[in-house]
């Protein structure tokens, strides 16, 4: 699917007219925010483990429908909220960014789980993207591995709070010249090109983890391979039962 044309639905004239009338705008604002906050339709889009908790949130025990957010739309065009639920790999990241670009304004993103926030436990993987916020802006970060379904509901309420704080005149998507469509990274020979989008993300100033262990943690890096050919004493070769020595505590 190609890039899409963005057509703003509120024109400038209407906006300036609204600006003059304080009370009207205030109520309009309230109405607008109320409409958006009570009808957040997420995209039916799961990546990994957290997606299961996302489904659990939609299921009977937690029932995200109470917030009016159970209509999981399969098409990005019709959804308001992208829940990035799970590890974003380098192979998947271009698709996630493209999906974000395909969504219609106003759009929100919740990163659910450690993996999508910063790579999480899989941060050292050669194919793991260290956080989807390197390419797209995120509204709510929701840590946990995986977050409980209640935590997702809490994240949703956090998003609602954020929506409540917005005003119709200052919302990003009605501003002129603001681009909410981000270039889709490409798969290069060693990883993604670019490694991050500097408009959205900048490296941490002090990264203790990197300082201490290096970029990926490779504490298992070894120079000597085990020699399996060496005969083992007191061990019949063909049986699978091993009578190896006691694991030694150092």
């Amino acid at each position, binding site marked *: 699917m190609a890039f899409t044309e963005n057509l703003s639905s509120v024109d400038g004239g209407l906006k300036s007219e609204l600006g003059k009338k304080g009370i009207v705008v205030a109520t309009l604002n309230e109405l607008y925010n109320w409409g958006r906050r009570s009808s957040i339709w997420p995209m039916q*889009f799961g*990546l*990994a483990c957290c997606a299961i908790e996302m489904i659990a949130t939609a299921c009977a025990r937690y029932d995200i429908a109470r917030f009016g957010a159970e209509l999981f739309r399969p098409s990005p065009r019709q959804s308001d909220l992208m829940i990035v639920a799970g590890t974003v790999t380098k192979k998947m990241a271009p698709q996630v960014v493209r999906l974000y670009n395909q969504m219609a304004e106003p759009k929100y993103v919740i990163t659910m789980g450690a993996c999508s926030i910063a790579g999480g*436990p899989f941060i050292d993987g050669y194919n793991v993207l260290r956080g989807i916020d390197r390419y797209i802006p995120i509204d709510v970060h929701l840590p946990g591995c995986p977050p409980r379904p209640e935590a997702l509901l809490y994240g949703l309420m956090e998003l609602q709070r954020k929506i409540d704080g917005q005003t119709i005149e200052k919302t990003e998507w009605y501003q002129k010249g603001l681009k909410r469509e981000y270039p889709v990274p490409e798969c290069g020979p060693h990883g993604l090109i670019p490694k991050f989008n500097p408009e959205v993300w900048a490296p941490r100033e002090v990264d203790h983890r990197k300082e201490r262990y290096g970029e990926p943690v490779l504490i*298992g890096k070894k120079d000597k391979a085990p020699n399996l050919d060496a005969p083992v004493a007191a061990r019949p070769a063909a049986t699978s039962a091993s009578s190896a020595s006691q694991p030694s505590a150092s």
Partner: protein
Amino acid sequence: MEKIFSARDPSALNTETLEINFGPQHPSTHGVFRMNIVCDGETVVSLKPVMGYLHRNHEQIAENMSYAASMPYTDRLDYFNSMSNNFGYSLAVEKLANIEVPERAQYIRVIMAELTRLVNHVSVIGFLLNDLGAFFTPVLYAFREREKILDIFEEVSGARMMCNYFRFGGVKYEIQPHILQRIKEIVKKFPKFLEEFEALLSKNEILCMRCQNVGVLPKELAVSASITGPMLRASGVDYDIRKVDKYSIYGRFKFRIPLGEKGDVYDRYYVRILEMHESLKILDQALKDIPATGELVSKKMAPFLKSPRNFKPPVGEAYGRVEAPKGELGFYVVSDGTPQPWRYHVRAPSFINLTILEDMCLGHKIADVIVILGSVDIVLGEVDH
């Protein structure tokens, strides 16, 4: 006229095949699986699976950390069945370091593994129905039961999904009598739910129409393609690692292996239902026989609970496998005598079960592809490990 009628056969319309790209973001590819489908109208002519969208380098990461630290990572392999993943990994390491597991821990392991099987099969059937187009109802019923079992997991291990409960030579926490009592209640009530679930599904004409004689997998192909788990048994091959290897204490329980007739989607669905009944039998027996007290971790391994980094198995290799709900889950571990394994490999059942996806789908409609994929029961965390 040339355009409309084909050059080779003037009486036939000149048609073009349509290339469709399913996924990686698609509502029913169970995650980030992708299929390149070439179809003629709606009939599938060729299908190429593309994976790796969730390749999160489990093996590389595991080779860079201590043996015990990989345990929580195995949870995230097949994220429906963290307990059976734990089981497989601890079996492999126990084989490697020759560790005995105390009696009570064995029982707890079996109970947890079978509960996991219930969780998996019931949700898989729910998702299969979702793929068939039911509006979430079977999934929600399945997840309702799943929640009840997850409550047990949470109470036992501390987490709903990522249990990290098994330890080499035992299990992590004590399981209190009141939890055992609750498991007994669940086991008692589960058949009633299964009955309702079956009434909802098994005889439903639409389900039968969609599932019977769709995606047939012949016996010979299943064996040659290393298919395992309910999918293999639905094709009529009697091979269940719980019976073959009799690992842990499965040799003590009486249960049967349901076998399918034709190996189509319906058989795979129904074999799973029957397997749940058998799992309940195992649970029944295990709950009756479990010793009231006993140690949880073998004496040899107890000191390493506090300091997993000091656990150094002797140089050697081991391949431990269990009958995970999705098939044979194997872990191949090579130790070089240091705290980190030299080689750590996962034999992921749903990854290998995908081998014959194309063979099963050819000639069927696009809608069937989704159903066949659903009946294979894949979890992308495991496929792409």
